[in-house]
């Protein structure tokens, strides 16, 4: 194809997206669109399966049978969401094994929030309330993104995630209505998860490299800062309802803006964790890599068995 023809195709392509048409895997697409989507969808998928680890950490220690069942179901949903997203990514011509390879070698990123430790039961509440709350704000607009398989996966994910945040908030509610000791657990969890949750929306708009292109392709509908503000505005009243204090002395309602003003985010910490030096980056990666490596013989066995069965069937049919 000549450069001019490609240019022409690109224009038609961008026009289709502008008209709210969906792009499907076999449609022509610019290489950059493919690569950006592989990066974003896989990063999203990786976040789901790495996200299973900090919460999975508390399945065996959940304080009641009801909480145990809810947590198990939630972590299982995350596995399911990872699976939907890997499948969506695979339609772009990359295999799940390649995607894992990128994760395991550190080439691909996942949400940094999962590099923080879950040290008390209240952390499970805080993750559901804050982390899933932030994730929902990020994810809901993706149900309308331009790439069909991603949009469809997100519709399913969002539908299933609706119970996750409620599950977390209910834990926080029970703790804050409980004994002073329980309330202290809840406050401590909020103290530790508040700032990392704000960082989940990514760098400030001034620093963000992908925003403009992502807007055009409907990978984003609002900027990082807008989403962060939305999260703060909706979460602060929920903290008030719990009787907990958001750990930000500069937080105050701004009548003119109709929003909360908030204090400075520690971006040094953000970049430290992104670069692989958070409290649990190594543990998380080790857990993923060893699950994959220790499972190799199981996956091989299943393939070998399937091959034998297929051959036996052939022989039976031939005779």
């Amino acid at each position, binding site marked *: 194809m000549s450069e001019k023809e490609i240019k022409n195709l690109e224009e038609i392509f961008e026009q289709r997206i502008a008209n709210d048409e969906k792009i499907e895997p076999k449609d022509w697409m610019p290489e950059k669109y493919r690569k950006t989507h592989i990066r974003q969808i896989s990063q999203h998928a990786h976040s789901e399966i790495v996200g299973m680890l900090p919460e999975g950490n508390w399945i065996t220690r959940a*304080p009641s049978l009801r*909480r145990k*069942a809810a947590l*198990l179901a939630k972590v*299982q949903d995350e*596995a*399911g969401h990872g699976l939907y997203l890997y499948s969506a990514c695979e339609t772009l011509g990359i295999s799940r094994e390649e995607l894992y390879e990128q994760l395991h070698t550190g080439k691909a990123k996942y949400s940094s929030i999962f590099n923080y430790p879950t040290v008390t039961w209240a952390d499970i509440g805080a993750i559901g309330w804050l982390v899933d709350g932030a994730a929902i704000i990020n994810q809901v607009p993706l149900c309308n993104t331009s790439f069909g398989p991603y949009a469809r996966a997100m519709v399913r994910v969002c539908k299933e995630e609706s119970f996750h945040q409620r599950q977390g908030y209910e834990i926080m509610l029970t703790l804050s209505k409980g004994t002073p000791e329980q309330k202290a657990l809840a406050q401590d969890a909020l103290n530790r998860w508040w700032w990392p949750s704000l960082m989940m929306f990514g760098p400030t708009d001034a620093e963000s490299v992908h925003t403009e292109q992502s807007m055009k392709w409907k990978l984003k509908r609002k900027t990082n800062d807008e989403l962060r503000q939305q999260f703060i505005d909706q979460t602060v009243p929920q903290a008030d309802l719990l009787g907990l204090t958001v750990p930000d002395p500069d937080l105050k309602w701004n009548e003119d803006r109709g929003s909360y003003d908030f204090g400075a985010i520690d971006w040094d910490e953000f970049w430290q964790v992104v670069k692989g030096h958070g409290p649990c980056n190594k543990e998380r990666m080790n*857990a993923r890599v060893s699950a994959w490596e220790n499972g190799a013989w199981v996956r091989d066995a299943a393939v070998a068995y399937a091959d034998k069965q297929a051959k036996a069937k052939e022989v039976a049919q031939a005779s």
Partner: protein
Amino acid sequence: MEHQSLYQYLLSLGDNALILGQRLGELCGHGPSLETDIACTNIALDLLGQTRSCFQYASKQLDGKTEDDVAFLRKENEYTNVLLVEQPNNDFAFVITRQYFFDVYQLMLMEWLSANSADETIKAIANKAVKEARYHRRFSSDWMLRLGDGTEESHQRLLDAVEALWPYTQEFFVPSEAEAWAASAGIGPDLTSFKAAYYNDVEALLEQATVPVPENPYFQKGGKQGRHTEHMGYLLADLQYMQRTYPNMTW
């Protein structure tokens, strides 16, 4: 007295599901593929559901107790699960073999209870559980075949798991006091009558999986009487951690 016997019998039903569910819960996020993670969690959730049904009913036999008191606040020697289900997740072959050995028994038990139990509540619990158990058994049998007749390595690992877990299979068929009471009251089966059919099924599947039936005639028991293996204390330390650290609170 009858309350006490019924309570003990419900513990025997619920404890197996609780402890095996706890073991499966440890695996979540660490399995060989996303798909197997999801499958094992489904089984854990089913077992946890069975546990809750049994313990909710059990707690009604004792005034002022909840399902969580029953699940979390007993001493090790008051748990009456069979030794098999507390065995650790050494590798996926252990996970599958433990599951399979349990599923064959559990399906027979639930089939009997759902058809015959004189206790309507137990009958209803079993009615739901029987469908779950049927699926679990199908899942674990399929994997027994894949591992047994897969690669050399998987065959060897399955062989090791079968050898290691085999001695824990006979305990199912040695009735505890509570199980004997249930049988005499028509609430539960005569477990000794399951034994022949159980080993017929298991041996047939092992043959299909190309794994020889272990010849070891020495069996372990004691779980039903609260005498557990060394693994149990650690399992309970996790299970009970919150309830023991923060007693008398609502979660």
